[in-house]
């Protein structure tokens, strides 16, 4: 069990993106609390939503176990996910990355028999606290799935507005929201002439960006992505990776990926999940800065996995 490095490096991480990124490396530990709020405030957007607090939208996960009925799929995850940064989750197939990711917006439990045990704290609220409505959690924490899933009967614009229309019958300045979200997803120029055409008529990469636009249209606090590029060609993949890099200025992003290069390219921190054998629960082996994970991981298992993939 080694969630230890996670908890120690986690607190200093938020200044990482405010500060210069990978170059400082380990240096953050000493001046943990110095001058952070200002830096963080500078780094964050100045818009109507209050994202100025250093730790706003940090996700603290404590001792999270995830079950499918009797089967324990994930065990004892403790980690702290940095705000306005990209956290990548890697690991072999079946180790519970998707399960874990889906537990962060309480989508795990929609599968019959599935439940979670543990704490996931966002902005002071335990998402699994007794009185918390999972529907509200999901409005705060958006998700992009492995295969693009725009609503097939809705137009491009309607897809973007789908989340907002849940909250309100009529969306004021709908056109504005559509444009802003599509621009945010780097899709505007490609679809601006066919906003009223079916969303399913777009290419796979465009559909995936449409799904990202749909997710960010509701201005969530956190964006979860489960292998968002696995169904896409290299060019669309690059487009989405660029987009992720832009989006992290505003959002806390957690991305599951099987692609090491992708994890290395887009993420600030990386968590490695592993599984001892079939039927055993997956667990978080190591969690650290991406650079560290890919150059000098503390755990042998991490090294094996990473070097196996990199050859």
């Amino acid at each position, binding site marked *: 069990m080694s969630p230890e490095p996670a908890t120690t490096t986690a607190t200093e991480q938020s200044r990482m993106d405010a500060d210069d990124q990978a170059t400082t490396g380990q240096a953050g530990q000493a001046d943990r609390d110095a001058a952070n709020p200002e830096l963080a405030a500078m780094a964050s957007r100045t818009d109507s939503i209050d994202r100025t607090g250093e730790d706003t939208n940090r996700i603290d996960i404590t001792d999270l176990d995830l079950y499918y009925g009797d089967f324990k799929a994930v065990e004892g995850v403790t980690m702290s996910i940095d705000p306005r940064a990209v956290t990548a989750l890697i690991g072999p197939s079946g180790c519970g990355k998707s399960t874990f990711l889906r537990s962060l*917006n309480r*989508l795990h439990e*929609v599968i*019959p028999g599935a439940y979670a045990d543990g704490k996931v704290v966002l902005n002071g609220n335990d998402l699994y606290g007794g009185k918390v409505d999972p*529907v*509200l*959690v*999901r*409005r*705060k924490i*958006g*998700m992009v*799935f492995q*295969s693009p*899933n*725009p*609503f*097939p*009967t*809705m137009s491009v614009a309607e897809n973007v507005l*789908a*989340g907002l229309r*849940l*909250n309100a019958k009529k969306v004021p300045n709908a056109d504005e929201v559509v444009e802003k979200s599509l621009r945010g997803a780097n899709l505007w120029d490609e679809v601006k002439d066919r906003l009223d055409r*079916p969303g*399913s008529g777009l290419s796979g990469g465009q559909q995936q960006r449409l*799904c990202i636009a*749909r*997710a960010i249209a*509701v201005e969530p606090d956190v964006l979860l992505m489960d292998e968002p590029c696995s169904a896409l060609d290299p060019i669309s993949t690059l487009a989405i990776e660029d987009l992720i890099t832009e989006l992290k200025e505003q959002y806390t992003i957690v991305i599951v990926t099987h692609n090491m290069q992708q994890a290395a390219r887009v993420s600030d921190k990386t968590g490695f999940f592993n599984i001892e054998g079939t039927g055993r629960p997956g667990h978080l082996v190591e969690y650290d800065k991406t650079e560290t994970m890919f150059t000098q991981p503390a755990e042998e298992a991490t090294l094996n996995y990473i070097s196996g993939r990199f050859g």
Partner: protein
Amino acid sequence: MTTTQTPPSDTTSTDDDFMAGELPTRRQDKLFEGITTGAGILILLTLAGVAFFLVQKSLPSLELPAESLPNAEDIGGYTWPLLFGTVYSAIIALLLATPLAIAIALFMTHYAPSKLAKTLGYVVDLLAAVPSVVYGLWGIFVLAPFFVPVYDFLADTLGWIPLFAPVVTPSGRNMASAALVIAVMILPIIASVSKEVFLQTPRLHEEAAMALGATRWEVIKTAVLPHGRSGVIGGAMLGLGRALGETMAIALVLSPTPGLIGFAVFTAQNPSTIAANIALSFPNFGGQERSALFATGLVLFVATFVVNYIARRIAGESTGY
């Protein structure tokens, strides 16, 4: 060089052999193709045979003397009120049954715990298996009297609408009861077809809606219903097909007024339907007059086709993704 070139030529030759030979399963394939084609042709022939029979038998009705037809001058005047009654009762039944069937299907797929949903599924299938004569009797003795107070209330309060015009027949054996009985009969068809399509909603779309923070009802609105639309329409059309041809229940529940075309559903004067009229009149009609019944049967045959055609068009349109 030459040695390296041999293997490819080898493989091409085996490829050729492979392509030239006939797989033993190909013969089964052909046999099966023959059987299925035969079955298809048989169906078409049967259909053509029925159509031919109907046309042949109904042709004499064109020359029927007016006095041999009750309340009608010619075959058109005889058929028209019956066609009206058929379509009218079927449409009312459909309007009553469809929303309820959709609600039942949604309850089974999205609200009920799985055990309850299963039980309910069996019950719905059982409803479909009840013979229509049983529904007819139940309609006369249970449903019609039970609804009389409701009819009274509606006629009192909304009587100015032609549909609800008084006077309510005390027995309750009116168009409303007939339509209700048919509605109960077609409910299982629509509900089970809807259930199937709702269950086939792509998980991805439901989860997409959930991930946006949709409540259960909103998931249904954004993912389930749009996906199920064509299937539900298809189910409704199947139900409509059954409603159009329903014979026993109507023949039992309604005491028709020959030749009537009227919209009031509570009164004692009700139009009859083609199928019920055939069943009721056949014993009383002589050979000559029976051609009129065949003519109405032909009209029903065609009407059912038209309904099916429209259903297919609608279902085809909305699956265009």
